[in-house]
């Protein structure tokens, strides 16, 4: 696997002369542990991190207040009447959040799977096979990355009306499956997989699909994981198109459903925050589980570096 590019790690390949503690503390050579630069940087980091976490914390704390507490002036950060889960019970009993979460799960998973299959097949075709019109198709696809999906909302809706797909899962799923950028990223990766690895199998008579499935795909796990995560997150959080494509409340995805909450709950701030927290949880959990893959995904896609 030496020919496949791996990304450099953050740790230096040579061990720190001052030992593993210095290495783990991120000390540069000749740097003191408590140098003013490092202390300053740490203080700045803490302040900024608190700033960035504050909106979350504010939403969280509000969601555990009673409604009267949430609307009480003067404002206090923590609840005066103690913590309560009343808002959550209300939201879960009266609202549709579990249903919307389910819809999001179905559509996002479908979009991810279909996009992955379609894009990987196409990327392999572009990477390994020479066929008539290949150049035109490839560059046409690249050019289409410029097209903002927002420009297409009107004709796409028209098309869904014509196909009788409005207010179905497919209306939400299908337009999101077209991902020329992902095809491009996958092709770039496949280009780096040495052809020799496939030649042996092909000489033995294995067909292209077989080679693709058994040899190229297993070697592509990192990039496939990265693409899956990107596509899943984007599909889960997509608002404009699912908003347009569905008017039936039982089909709405989580972001869309949450938008309708605004008018329904109106001034019940604790409940609005409770629904926001509930809506935020799925992807935060995903991130906590897949943190490494997500961050590695940024490196693998080739965005970083010179």
């Amino acid at each position: 696997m030496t020919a496949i590019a791996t990304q450099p790690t953050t740790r230096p390949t040579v061990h720190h002369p001052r030992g593993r503690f210095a290495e783990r503390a991120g000390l540069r050579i000749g740097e003191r542990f408590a140098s003013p630069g490092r202390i300053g940087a740490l203080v700045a980091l803490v302040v900024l991190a608190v700033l960035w976490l504050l909106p979350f914390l504010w939403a969280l704390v509000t969601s555990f207040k009673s409604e009267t507490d949430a609307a009480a002036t003067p404002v206090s950060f923590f609840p005066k009447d103690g913590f309560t889960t009343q808002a959550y019970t209300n939201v879960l009993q009266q609202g549709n959040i579990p249903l919307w979460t389910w819809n999001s799960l179905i559509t996002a998973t479908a979009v991810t799977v279909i996009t992955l299959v379609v894009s990987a097949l196409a990327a392999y075709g572009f990477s390994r096979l020479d066929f008539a019109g290949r150049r035109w198709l490839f560059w046409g696809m690249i050019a289409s990355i410029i097209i903002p999906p927002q420009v297409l909302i009107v004709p796409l809706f028209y098309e869904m009306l014509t196909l009788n797909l409005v207010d179905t899962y497919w209306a939400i799923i299908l337009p999101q499956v077209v991902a020329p950028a992902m095809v491009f990223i996958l092709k770039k990766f496949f280009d780096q997989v040495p052809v020799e690895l496939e030649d042996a199998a092909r000489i033995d008579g294995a067909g292209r699909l077989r080679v693709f499935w058994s040899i190229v795909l297993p070697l592509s796990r990192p990039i496939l994981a990265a693409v899956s995560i990107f596509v899943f997150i984007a599909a889960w959080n997509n608002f404009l198109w699912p908003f347009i494509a569905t008017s039936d409340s039982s089909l709405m995805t989580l972001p869309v459903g949450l938008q309708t909450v605004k008018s329904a709950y109106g001034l019940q701030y604790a409940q609005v925050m409770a629904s926001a927290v509930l809506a935020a949880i799925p992807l935060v959990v995903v991130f906590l589980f897949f943190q490494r893959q997500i961050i590695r995904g940024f490196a693998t896609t080739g965005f970083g570096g010179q």
Partner: protein
Amino acid sequence: MSTAALSAAARTRADADQVRAGERSARNRNNRIGWAFVAPFVVVFVMFLIWPLIHGFYLSFTGESITGANGEIIGFANYAEALRDPIMWRSLLNTLWFTVLSTIPLVVVALVLALLVHQGLPGQWLWRLSFFMPFLLASTVAAQIWIWMYNPQLGLVNYLLGAVGVDPVAWLQDPTWAMFAVVIMTTWWTVGFNFLLYLTALQNIPEQQYEASALDGAGRWRQLRSITVPQLGPVTVLIAMLQILASLKVFDQIYVMTNGGPAGVTRPVVMYIFETGFTGYRFGYASAIAYIFFALIVIISIGQVRLTSRRSA
């Protein structure tokens, strides 16, 4: 010619024909296999991107409404109306203003955060989590949180301002402040993406450069100025370009937080397209605005490509 020579010539011709036929059939096989691999993509590509693109362009020359009525071609009337439409121009202006206001912090703040985190201080996972997590929120979730943050009487922002003696501001209701409120929210929400891009780029700078300079006595600031920053040029250009294009397409958070108001001072182009088509039911007119917007995007994209290729040339 002798019969032997004649038949020998015929045999070479037959051989050549056979070779050519073999090549043709191999090419045909390659064509079939190649197209088989790209076929699924081509199908969805044409159905859900190319066809709507063409159809939308066609629609912009009709007066079609959402019900399908009035579908006759009316020439350039939609475009003429759009160019005379003050709301269209205002929304273009709003979009450009938002792009300028948001791109700068989204690049600079991301860089600062990445530089700080890259110092290798302990607690890496906590910093990465804090700065990237908002990016994982759906637009409506982040927007709801910030609507609450910006609540004039009960929100955290005015509460904190009050603690330092500043009068409360009606962030989302005041025409002076609404766009800034949206920009601040957007920065909090999406900086994580640029932050990770910068972090990746920083990690690609070989550690040996820092070690070598440290042996020569360089401190952190000197390393920053002389090693780190010069090598961040290309990725900064990339991030800025991506950010500009992303900001031009803004819709979600403005729609949820201000609905384009107050008095249309925050309404972006995409929202005007949406309103015209799905609230005003004028598909033809909405398509015309959409294509004017698309032309703007293309011009800016081409400008970006030319700018960067001239620099590297």
